């Protein structure tokens, strides 16, 4: 919320400043001085005191906008440090000094207007007013900062809620995309056929399918997992797909060992591989290849999945899956992580880059 642009704030700020100065300065002077003044001067001096209070209040309000401008432009309530506090104090005291310097000529003018005389206070006497002025500003700043912090906390609460809902949403989406029923049933059917010719490989396939199921059932609530765990699932998926595609699926993998323990959001690499197999190789009569690489470059984890074939955006499900990947990367890494999908020669290349 921007207070500088809020009419409500300005209304209450003017009201607050003038009421405070009139109540604490003018009232006191009036009640104290009235008894000691000559009758003929009373009305005029009452008017002067009132103008004095109004001037003090309005000038304070006007200058407070300088501090408010500074706060709204430079103070980040999510990241307050010593330096920030120091700068704010510096601005605060500078404004008080400006106030101190500009106030006396104004009061002098006012005194001339009502009583036709100048202010005859010494500098030291004037200085004694400084704590009072400072207090006016301090009270104001306390209120402003309280409002700002209140707003900030609300904002944090809201965005956390938002993050949680969208995370849950995307987890749900991955869950849907994850246990792809078409893949499940085709695999089970293929294993049934495989039992007739290679019992031990069939047993291996059942284990792999179970591992994939377990992974998808248990890793859903997790926000990140080490890359090597994800690669295990990818390996299972590829091996099971190979009994469906046989010679039509070629897979190669190049992973820098240093990347193996880097934490990544689960199912993202797996989804890219699934897309590559389903919409790339799966669409080609003669089959094709899928290549996976993971490396570190400039403090970024770079994951690349390339598959033979052409980009085809007609299919809603692909798009949804890719949007999902983008969204999850954005939620976890902000705009530091990037995802791109391009066509390069006879290959479609999906690239993820995650900050380390």
């Amino acid at each position, binding site marked *: 919320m921007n207070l500088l642009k809020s009419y409500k704030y300005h209304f209450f700020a003017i009201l607050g400043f003038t009421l405070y100065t009139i109540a604490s300065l003018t009232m006191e002077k009036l009640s104290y001085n009235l008894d000691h003044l000559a009758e003929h001067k009373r009305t005029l001096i009452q008017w002067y005191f009132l103008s004095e209070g109004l001037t003090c209040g309005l000038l304070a309000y006007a200058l407070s906008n300088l501090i408010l401008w500074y706060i709204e432009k430079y103070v980040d309530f999510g990241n307050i440090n010593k330096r920030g506090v120091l700068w704010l104090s510096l601005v605060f005291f500078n404004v008080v000094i400006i106030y101190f310097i500009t106030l006396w000529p104004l009061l002098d003018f006012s005194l001339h207007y009502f009583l036709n005389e100048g202010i005859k206070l010494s500098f030291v006497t004037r200085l004694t007013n400084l704590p009072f002025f400072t207090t006016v500003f301090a009270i104001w700043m306390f209120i402003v900062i309280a409002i700002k912090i209140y707003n900030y906390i609300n904002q944090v609460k809201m965005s956390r809620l938002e993050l949680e809902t969208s995370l849950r949403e995307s987890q749900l989406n991955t869950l849907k995309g994850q246990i792809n029923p078409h893949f499940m049933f085709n695999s*089970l059917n*293929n294993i049934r056929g495989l039992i007739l010719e290679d019992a031990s490989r069939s047993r291996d396939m059942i284990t792999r399918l179970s591992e994939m199921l377990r992974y998808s059932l248990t890793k859903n609530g997790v926000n990140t997992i080490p890359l090597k765990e994800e690669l295990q699932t990818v390996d299972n998926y590829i091996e099971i797909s190979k*009994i*469906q595609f046989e010679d039509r699926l070629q897979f190669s993998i190049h992973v820098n060992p240093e990347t193996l323990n880097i934490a990544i959001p689960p199912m993202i690499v797996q989804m890219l591989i699934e897309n590559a197999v389903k919409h790339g190789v*799966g669409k080609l009569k003669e089959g094709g290849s899928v290549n996976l690489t993971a490396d570190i470059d400039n403090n970024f984890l770079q994951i690349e999945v390339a598959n033979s074939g052409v980009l085809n955006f007609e299919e809603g499900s692909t798009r949804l899956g890719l949007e999902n990947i983008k969204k999850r990367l954005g939620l976890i890494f902000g705009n530091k992580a990037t995802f791109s999908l391009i066509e390069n020669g006879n290959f479609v290349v999906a690239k993820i880059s995650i900050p380390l």
Partner: protein
Amino acid sequence: MISIKAIIVEDSRLARNELKELVKKHPELNIIGEAENVDDAYELITRERPDMIFLDINMPGKDGFDLLEMLDDVPITVFTTAFDEYAIKSFEYNALDYLLKPINQNRFADAINKVKAKMAAPASADDTATQNTASDIGLRTPETHLTENSQIFIKDGEKCWLVKLSEVQLFEIVGNYTRVYFRDCKPLIYKSLNQVEERLPQHLFFRASRQQIVNLQYIKSVDNWFNGKLKATMLNGSEVEISRRQSALFKDMLSL
């Protein structure tokens, strides 16, 4: 014992083996060929003329529906699919049967029984005998005319139909395409009326005009119209104008 000639269309070798394992319990089923993609399947089916096909929906390149669209005369089709409920629901009147992989042996036997029933249905009339022999000695090459029992596959947008030619009342020109009228449906097919006419059995269908081909069995009455033209009233009440030249031909044909 009858013998059912069947072709398996399925991209996964293991799935084909798995299907053949199920077939072993049905000696009447005779697998005469296998294809692992739609183009091979098209060639095999037009050459071998099977009684039925086991057809996977999801295949690389073209899918099972594409194959049905390519075929002029669609054999009895049993879809085999892992999980394509949506695709299967697009079929009207359960024209096709489907089996979910992995396939249950009992469910498989049911499907084969349905195929047998379908094969037996048109056999009520005496023409079946001749038809079967014709097919057996290979007279039904792709160039010859279809018969009234030939099935055509029609896909218009989200809906699919498998229609016997004898059910079609009328073909009508719509730009470069043809509208097919049958039952209460009138989907478009992406062939010109001339292409359609070439393949239709002549004793059943008559070219009424440049725009329309009618099924003679669906004509209720024919009246004289002006300029020497005729007007046919169809069983469903709609009227079809027969052009002057065709009217003469029509009279000739019926006077025989």
